[in-house]
């Protein structure tokens, strides 16, 4: 699936988007896989309560299943308007 990062999550990880081959069952499983990769991921995902996630461009929860998902995005709380 495609994994996207925005705002300071993008800055900490250093890339806006990457292809991730994962068999993670839920968003939180994916977060744990990413955390284990490198320090920059561990830093970005240090506190998931400070993050939001979207699955296929809809806001979702961290316990949401990833079955059949094409795109997951991680970002801080939004500050539009």
């Amino acid at each position, binding site marked *: 699936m495609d994994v*996207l990062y*925005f705002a300071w999550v993008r800055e900490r990880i250093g890339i806006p988007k990457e292809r991730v081959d994962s068999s993670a069952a839920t968003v939180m499983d994916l977060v744990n896989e990413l955390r284990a990769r490198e320090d920059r991921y561990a830093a970005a995902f240090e506190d998931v309560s400070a993050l939001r996630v*979207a699955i296929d*461009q809809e806001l979702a929860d961290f316990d949401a299943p990833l079955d059949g998902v094409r795109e997951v*995005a991680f*970002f801080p709380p*939004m500050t*539009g*308007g």
Partner: protein
Amino acid sequence: MRIAVQTAPFDLGDEAARFASAQSHSGAVVTFTGVVRDVSGGLQAMEIEHYPGMTERALTDIAQQAMDRWSLEDALVIHRHGTLTVGEQIMMVATAARHRKDAFEAAEFLMDYLKSRAPFWKREVTGDGEAWVAARDEDEDALKRW
């Protein structure tokens, strides 16, 4: 209903006049405009990042919720991204309804949801560096009234 996500500036006057004149049954038109302001001094630019694709979906969904929930004839959302300077207009919403209560409430609803549920992130650039704008608890709390 019109949703626009763009880097280009928009003209509040033109947009408001065009929106109002397009309504044939509405006695009440409300607009809200957000302007870049320099609160603590030294702001050189406001950079707005967004999530292409999801942004349009989220704004369309929020506007459709407003149309379904209030007796609106029309709604407009324009939101810019990219680099803006102090005094520039960031975004606007407009609502048209027969009664002012619907137009006001729907405009406030649009703003509350747009603030916390549309994928935009603001970064302030000052002489001291750059900092992401933190989400405010009161913006999240504002959603609870709807």
